[in-house]
């Protein structure tokens, strides 16, 4: 049972010290319909151990608050320059922030009349966050919905996640988590009594490919899955379907066999789309547009068919 805890994962570096229990949240999406059953509120944690080339939420990588610049909204008034205490405002054509100087204080965003500069990420405590997500509890109760922790990677903040889930569950609200699979197993096991559902990403079965496209190998991801699959019934595998990366027959069959080996019978396939790439120029990030076209319906049907041949029911998200 120690294997989870002893695995060194990039997320470990970002572990918050026990007791402080604060996390950086970059979005709270109410009326989410696709992060679990019913009407849900999804909490997006900032910080992720992976750097997937196709990431839809590039603002989630860095675990600290950061400035984003929406060039198309800027009117060039430079109210931000006056507001900035660190002289971090520059006059680039689509750049306004010198990230080497910026400490993400948010003064420029406050001063900007056009909402062109925004502070992404707020440090929150679990109590106020729980109160906020509980505002929609009537809708959760009626629709069979609840709260989903997403990100980024919520397990970057395991102590916070535990506190938040406890608070929410104490009010009778159902919970779910979306994870990339890189977490300390001991941490995850503490969360399980307060979770109704775990969505778990399986991106590629080949360690080399996995490392090439996500920045980390898949050993911990796979071993965590196997352990979790035994310990927790409501584990649901997910797979982002990326044309040309992981939708080849070999990988699909390998994924299916891995699932079967772990005692799982289904997988949810999330078709790739490139809407997240519009966020890239606004951020300080190394991620570059992937140049992939969105997944085609025919490809997804093929993926589904191969899974079925292997005895796995693949559900394709619209």
């Amino acid at each position, binding site marked *: 049972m120690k294997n989870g805890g002893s695995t060194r994962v990039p997320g470990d570096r970002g572990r918050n010290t026990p007791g402080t229990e604060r996390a950086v949240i970059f979005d709270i999406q109410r*009326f989410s319909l696709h992060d679990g059953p*019913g009407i849900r509120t999804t909490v997006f944690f900032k910080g992720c151990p992976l750097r997937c080339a196709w990431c839809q939420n590039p603002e989630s990588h860095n675990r600290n608050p950061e400035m984003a610049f929406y060039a198309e909204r800027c*009117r060039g008034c430079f109210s931000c320059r006056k507001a900035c205490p660190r002289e971090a405002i520059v006059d680039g054509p689509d750049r306004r922030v010198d990230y080497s100087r910026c400490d993400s204080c948010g003064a420029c965003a406050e001063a900007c*009349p056009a909402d062109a500069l925004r502070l992404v990420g707020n440090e929150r405590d679990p109590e106020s966050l729980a109160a906020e997500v509980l505002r929609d509890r009537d*809708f959760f109760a*009626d629709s069979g919905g609840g709260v989903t922790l997403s990100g980024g990677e919520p397990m970057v903040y395991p102590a916070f996640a535990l506190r938040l889930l406890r608070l929410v569950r104490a009010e009778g609200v159902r919970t779910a988590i979306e994870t990339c699979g890189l977490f300390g197993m001991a941490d995850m096991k503490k969360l399980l009594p307060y979770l109704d559902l775990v969505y778990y990403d399986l991106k590629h079965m080949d360690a080399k490919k996995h490392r090439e496209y996500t920045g980390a190998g898949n050993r911990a991801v796979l071993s965590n899955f196997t352990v979790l699959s035994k310990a927790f019934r409501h584990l649901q595998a997910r797979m982002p379907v990326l044309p040309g990366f992981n939708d080849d027959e070999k990988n699909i069959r390998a994924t299916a066999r891995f699932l079967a080996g772990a005692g799982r019978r289904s997988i949810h396939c999330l078709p790739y789309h490139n809407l997240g790439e519009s966020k890239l120029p606004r951020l300080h990030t190394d991620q570059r547009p992937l140049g992939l076209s969105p997944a085609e319906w025919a490809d997804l049907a093929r993926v589904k068919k191969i899974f079925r041949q292997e005895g796995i029911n693949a559900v394709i998200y*619209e």
Partner: protein
Amino acid sequence: MQSSTSKRRETGASGRITRLRAAVQGAAPGICTERALLWTAYHRDRGNRGKHPHVRMAEALREVLLGKTICIYPDELIVGNFTSKRVGGSIYPELHGVPVMIDLFSFNTRKTNPLEISRRERTALMKIIPFWMFRFLGVRAYRSPFTLARFMVNQLRGHQYLINETGGISHLAPDYEKLIAIGTDGIVAEVRSLEKGAEPDSNRRHFYHGVGIIAEGLAQFGERYAELAERTAFAEQDPVRKKELLAIAAACRRVPRKGARTLQEAVQSLFFAQIAINLESLDNSVCPGRMDRYLYPYYRDDVRTGRLTRARAKDILSAFSIKMSEIIPVFSRHLTGFHGGMFNGQVVTVGGVDARGNDSTNELSYMFLEIMDELRMRQPNYHARVHAKSPRRYLDMIYRVLAGGSNSPALYNDDVIVPTLVKHGYSLADARDYTAVGCVEPVSQGKSFSSTDAALMNAALCLELALNRGRRFGSPMRTGPRTRPVSRMRSMEDVRAAFEAQLGSMTGRLIRDLKAIERVNTRHHPTPLTSMLLSECLEKGVCSTAGGARYNFSGVQNTAPIDIGDALAAIERVVFIDRRITLPELAAMLKANIPDERDREYLRGLPKYGNDMEEADRWSVYVIRAYTKALSDAGLSTRGGRYVPGLYSVTAHEFFGRVTGALPHGRRKGEPFASGVSAVNGMDRNGPTALINSTNRIDFTEIANGVNYNLKFDRHTLRGETGRAALAALIRTFFRRGGMQAQINVVDPSVLIEARNHPDRHPNLLVRVSGYSAYFNDLTPAMKDEIIRRNCYRIG
């Protein structure tokens, strides 16, 4: 998925219905002069001038019914034509007709709602203007020329309020159940026995006389169609159609004179009355109401005896439904600003509870929902009542058609509306038999003569006046009372006091003008036909315009409660909490129309209603309470009923917005207000659950005249089983927590933008405006922009 589409096509509209629909939708709307000319000819006749108004009205309407052109169009099963045009409207010279005729030379060419009228028709109408110039209802309101001039200027400018009763009252759901059951002969018999108890030459006696005349006139109107159907059948070559025409003739021989025996006769009977009532007074909101309830016994008997199949019944009701789109209102451009979208407010309500509180959904409820979804036409307006025990199948069907983008039906919550009506004086059984009329207003079928759209008030103007000592921004003239200057307002208490003073004053002015119009309606334009189909008018021998009906509420609408609420929230935050600027500075900024864009962005960024923030929502709640109080202080109408508040706007939120100065929530002069209790455009930033949480803070049981609440989604959000279930959960939760009404708009914004830029590409695109559906192309350019701007929820 595929099988369900093909199945739908199989059960969809028959060839006949498709052809009828195409004929009506393809017809260019026009103006029919017959009502105006026949009415004028009768009143010009000096022999008629001495008669009692009850008799005059009855005889004039009989002249119209017996003198107007009648026709039977190919494929029709239900016959009767509102006007001489396939799709047309009438002019009512004694009501609002004279002001409407301002547009006589531009009806053909105007951009919004063009109406066809030939040169000959125009000349004929020109000739009657001098006769009515000093006889129409508006000019009779006041004797003093000075007061009258003030009233007319106010009415024509329409900045403060619009008295809709100047065009007649209507807004009722007639007791068609009674007409269908006993026919006009039955009513005449009732009148004859009541008449005996009335003093000769008394008002009562004349009233009964008038009712007798028009009851007979209505019967003869039906018989004209019987003759025409017989003649047409004689010339008809196709044996199948010939048989149909003979059946139509037989039905028209029977009804409306006698009681109906079949579903076809029942529908035919009520449709003749529907035409006649629309020709009697204002052609607005004459509502068949709960048709599924009162037609069901006829349907059940027909099916049981094998006379009728479900498919045939559906054809009859579809044919009726299409007929309801053959009428349009004739408004001037000015009035179109308030009542856009060529909409007569004819409502059909389905579902709900019966008099004992049990669910009354039946097969016809489902049939009407199918018809509504298949036809998707402007009229009638379909509304669905729901309650905690509505059957699953019924709700599933409603949510399926809504998620599919039908934009109808609007949803009404029995569990809130029935107690609300009881609280305001309805008996429980009558409250349970409510139907919506017009836009969203609940009334008891056949028992209420509630002038539900008596007037529309621009309450937001009261805030402008409160911030400028009773003057409009930039105006030297005083409109309202001289309230405390902003420089001496020390707290929100002071702002509220000034606002309430202005609101009370404007309400007082409105009610005074409204009462003047109520009196001339009673004196000069009684409505014997309408009264004949309203409970207690006959028993009392009192016309509905004089308070004869059992319930006599008058609805006065606040068209911008949410904007006022957000504006007050902004004042509190900026001036009294953050102390960023002083109130005089803010007022000066508003007078200058918020010149600095940064100030505007700042004001728009403050907490707003619709985001589940108590700080902002409580101000909207306050405004609604203050408005309710101002109206309840106004006393009783001349018909003896209370003035009750409505929170909906038709399209007046756009018109009133255009004339109201800048407001502190970052709204510049001329921008439209929010519609009903929806959030200000684009200001609900946290999605539908947050918006609903905000709205649930309002106590709807105080709003006896109804609210309009738009929830807008794009198609993408509501797709599939997931989307449908989410929609159902949203509405269920909203209603369980006290929500009164909701209407779901499912529109893809890109389609709307395309429809605006290329009107020809989407000629029949239906959108929900304010309690009713309208063709997008029928809206003013500003309204189109507003529909597009309205927030659309998107998921990532």
